[in-house]
Every structure is written in C-alpha cells, then in structure tokens.
C-alpha cells in the first residue's frame, strides 16, 4: 500500500511542481494577505495622523488674537488661509478650514456666543481625524474662556460640570489590536483552500479531462489509495501556502507602524506556533473537500467554479463573527473553520485557548478529512463518475 500511495504522490508532486498555475496559486496568494495587511495598517496610521507637527489653516485669525496665541501655546502651527481655501477643502487638498468672522470680536466681548465655522467635507473619512482634533481644540478653548468668566463672577467652574465622565477601559492593548488582526487568520485559512486548489483540480477533474483517468483506474490498485496519494500532495501544497502566509503576515505586522496606532500587534513566537498548530489541521480538510468536489466535476472549468464556491464556506464564520459577536461554546470547536477562527482570535487577543479545545478542533478536522478522502475513493469506483461527460 505504501508503495502505491508513494507512486501516486510522486507523480502528482512532479506534475504539480512543473505546473506554473499550481505553483502560482500556492506561492502568490500567500503574498497578497501580508501585503494588504501592511498597506492597511500603514494607511490606518496615516489617517490617525500622528506623524507630522499638527497644523491648522485659519481665515480671519486677526479677529481673535487671544485664540491664536492659545492655539500656538498648544504647539500648533497656524497658517493663514489662501483665498481658494474653500475650493481646496472641496476637492480634498485641505482637510479643515477654520473661519473666524469679522463680527467675532463684537459678540465675544458682549458675552454672546461667538461663531467659529469649521469647514470640512464631513463625508470624507480621511479628514475625519483632523476635523475631530480641530473641534476638540476649539471646545477646549471655549471651556477655558467659560471657566475664566465664571471665576470673574466669583463662581467655581465646577458648578457647570456636575458630572465627570471617565472612561475606564478594561481591554488590554492586545485586545484592541486583536480586532484589527482578525484579518490574519482569515488570510491563513483562505491560503489553506487556495494553496492546493489547482493540484486538487488537476489530479481529479483534470485527470478525467485529459483522458488519463481510465488508464489509471485499470491498475490493480484500491481506489482509496489513489485518492490518498492525491490528497497527500494537495495537502502539502495547501499547508505550505498557509505557513508562508502566516510567516509573511507576522513579518508584515513587524514592519507596520503599529505603535503609532497605539496597538500592540507583534505576535510572539509562542502565538505564531499556536496559530500554526490551530490552522494547519484545516489544510488536510480543505484538500480532501476540494478533491471530493472536483471529482464530481466533468471538466477543469466546472471544477474551478465549484471550488470557488467552496472557498466561501470557511469565510462564513468570520463574517458572522464580525456582524454579530458570537459567544464561543464547546460544540463550536468541533466545527472546522469556525473552531479555527475562534481559536486564532483567542490567540491574537493574547489569551491561550485551552489545549482541549485545540485538540478537539484538530481531531474534528482530521476526521472530516479522512471521511473526504474515503468518499473520494468511493467516488472513483462509480462508473457514472469514471465515464462522466461521455
């Protein structure tokens, strides 16, 4: 039996490594996730806007010299607005424009609410952070002026703030970053499915399409062993792809400016090993499922269609988890893909899932993979499948 499985695996391996399409899907997809992660976090850090010295563009600053010096005291650089400042805001060259009207000093001195306009495109998310900062600064100034006025009248400023809100955040910085990091497991899980896809198709539907299946099945070999050999190679591609994705993601997170986001995103060695242990059992399962489905397909193209549909299955738990947070219970750890999602999310939050759950997840994945390989072997014995499309 060993030699038969070995012979099948060797041939499928040779065919796959000589197939540019198979290599591309196994080796290029792993680059996509990490590169996206890198761009995403870098972009995020930029919108949070912390790098450069803060600046404000102001029109009519001469009407409120006190405000100007207060702002300068806060370390802000103040620019006088160019004449086309409104147009610049409209087409995105400028994020916020502060406008102080000529009647500001009159109202201010009279004790009437003096108006300051904060002009921005409020639909543009990239300027949201700057707008928020400008608003906060102006409110703070307004608050300090109010306090002085109260004090001048002999009233303690606390009178107008009966309640003090303070946010006590129990989430560790890691938990915050976990929300951002859930894309990592998603990419690794997808890599399990994409890495072996071409190999799975080529060794089943491809074998039939090029007419080599009939000759193969004429050998005195149990069909289950043929399926087993094909599965081993598919799993190899799938697992390799997943490991590369994981390692590159870790590297990408190392390079991303996470500190600027106030996020701890660097994964420890232990976490990476844990994630690998959790995700890798998904590779044999994904491969078995793909072989089974592709064996049904009459042609290479039909198999590709079915396997792309199959690709959405592992994403379902992740999507549901983002829409409505699920409270994990034991049975969920026996559902492949869902269990991996839960366990990885835990690992990313810096919590170590119980080893029992890791084992349950792995065992259930391997068991389902076994069923898939067995069923594929059975399928290859069906006349209808062998001669499908004839």
């Amino acid at each position, binding site marked *: 039996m060993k*030699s*038969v499985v*070995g*012979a*099948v695996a*060797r*041939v499928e391996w*040779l*065919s796959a490594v*000589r*197939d540019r399409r198979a290599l591309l899907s196994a080796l290029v997809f792993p680059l996509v996730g990490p590169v996206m992660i890198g761009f995403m976090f870098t972009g995020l850090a930029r919108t949070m806007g912390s790098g450069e010295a803060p600046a404000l563009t102001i029109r009519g600053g001469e009407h409120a010299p006190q405000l100007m010096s207060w702002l300068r005291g806060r370390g802000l650089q103040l620019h006088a607005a160019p004449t086309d400042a409104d147009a610049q805001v409209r087409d995105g060259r400028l994020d916020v424009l502060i406008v102080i009207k000529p009647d500001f000093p009159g109202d201010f001195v009279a004790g009437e609410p003096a108006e300051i306009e904060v002009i921005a495109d409020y639909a543009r998310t990239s300027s949201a952070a700057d707008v928020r900062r400008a608003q906060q600064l102006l409110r703070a100034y307004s608050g300090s002026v109010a306090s002085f006025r109260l004090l001048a009248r002999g009233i303690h400023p606390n009178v107008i703030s009966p309640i003090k809100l303070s946010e006590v955040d129990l989430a560790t910085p890691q938990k915050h970053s976990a929300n951002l990091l859930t894309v990592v497991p998603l990419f690794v899980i997808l890599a399990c499915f994409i890495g072996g896809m071409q190999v799975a198709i080529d060794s089943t539907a491809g*074998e039939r399409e*090029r*007419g*080599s*299946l*009939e*000759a*193969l*099945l*004429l*050998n*005195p*070999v149990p069909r289950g062993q043929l399926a087993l050999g094909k599965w081993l190679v598919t799993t190899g591609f799938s697992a390799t792809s997943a490991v590369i994705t994981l390692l590159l993601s870790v590297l990408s997170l190392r390079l991303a400016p996470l500190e600027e986001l106030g996020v701890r995103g660097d994964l420890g060695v232990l976490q990476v090993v844990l994630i690998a242990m959790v995700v890798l059992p998904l590779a044999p399962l994904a491969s078995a499922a793909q072989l089974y489905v592709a064996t049904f397909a009459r042609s290479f193209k039909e198999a590709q269609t079915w396997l792309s549909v199959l690709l959405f299955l592992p994403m379902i738990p992740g999507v549901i988890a983002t829409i409505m947070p699920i409270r994990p219970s034991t049975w969920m750890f026996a559902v492949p893909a869902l269990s991996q999602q839960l366990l990885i999310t835990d690992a990313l939050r810096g919590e170590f899932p119980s080893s029992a759950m890791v084992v349950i997840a792995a065992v259930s994945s391997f068991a389902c993979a076994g069923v898939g390989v067995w069923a594929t072997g059975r399928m290859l014995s069906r*006349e209808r499948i*062998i*001669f499908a499309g004839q």
Partner: protein
Amino acid sequence: MIEVQALAKRFGEVHAVRDVGFLAPDGQVTGLLGPNGAGKTTAMRMISGLLRPDVGSVTIEGVDVHADPFAARRLIGVLPDARGLYPRLTAREHLVYFGRLHSVDPNVMGERIARICNSLDMKGIIDRRVAGFSQGERMKVALARALIHDPPCILLDEPTNGLDVMSTRAVREMVRGLRSEGRCVIFSSHIMQEVAALCDRIVVIVGGRVIQMGSADELMAVTETASLEDAFVACILADQAMAGAA
C-alpha cells in the same frame, strides 16, 4: 486466454451491449470489428473490468474479472479508449508510474523499460516531456504503459485511430510481435483492412450483438461474399433487416 460470455450492459434506456460472447485464445489476435457505436468500447470496458456487466461474465486466464478484479488486471494490459497522458511527465516517468502501480520489481523495471523502448522505437523520446508529442508518439507511450507489467493478455481499443501510415505500421508490427510471443491479443477496430491484415479470428459486433465469428475466409464463406468488406457489409445489412423485422 480470455473468455467472454453473454455480456449485456444498459445505460438508462440505451442497450449499449446486448449479447457479446467469444473466446480469445493465446498466440492469436482476435479482432472485434463493428461500425461506430456498435458497442465495441463498452464491451472492451467490461472485459477490462472498468464496467460491471448487467449480465454475463469475463474470465482472463481463468480468473473472473469481476470476482477478483486485481488478479485479473495483473494479467491484462489495456490500451483504453481514452489514452490521455500526463503532459508534464516524461515518457519514462509514465512507465515507472504504471510499473510501480503494478508492483513491478524495481530491479526489473529498468531492463523492461529498455526492452519496450526498443521494440516501440522510443529511444529518442523516452526522457522528453509528453506535452509536445505527436499522435504517434503519444500512442507509443500509451502502449508502452499498458505493457510495463508484461501481461499475457492484451486489450487494444482502436489502437490505430488517428495515426499516420508510419505509426499505424509500427502498431501492427508491435501486435504481430505480441502474438509471436504467444500472448492473447484482442484488437478492436472499425476498419476492415486493418482487421483483415492482422487478425486470426474476427468477431463482428453490430448493434451490441456478436453476429458472426471466424477467420476472414470463414466469414466470406458464410456470407457468400468475395471480400471481407462485402462480408462486413452483408453482416450489417442482415442485422438491419433483422431489426427492421422485429
């Protein structure tokens, strides 16, 4: 020796094979002759054990194909209807693959590949990848692959289909060689000249039934015709007349 008894196979409403039975002795080439769609390929697939007959049985060297398929498959080499190759493997890798699936002793493998390579004149292509091969070269690889386990019985489903003159001649030489080695060869074709030139015994299959059997001379005598072509046409017409009457 291959013994085929009263095979019948139905796919849904289609009776692909109704009644096919014959004996293929060792050291002879038995030709299955029939028009396209007569049921030759379906019969071949039942003989090789890929399809299970609804009725009837096949024994190869006394081994029942459907009771003990693995033992039977070791005794036959099959060139099936679909003879696709793996485009990214070399000819030699094909032979080693099928040799290993047939548990050919690794010590014997090299020598056997060399011998087959010699008799099919494949030396120039043995270590090249199959992707760019001509029809004739592909056929050689497929034939070699069927012979790698040195089987006593050989099943060839329309082996000269789509081949040019030179390749066809090479296949014929090959079949004669197999016969002279005392093997049992079954050869299916819809081309009479080919069957006439090669086969010791001819089994005429029309409409899923064996309607005549014998040597070329015997067939001509029975149908009172002067050539095998006329005999073949007479068989087909007789069958159509029977079908019309029924």
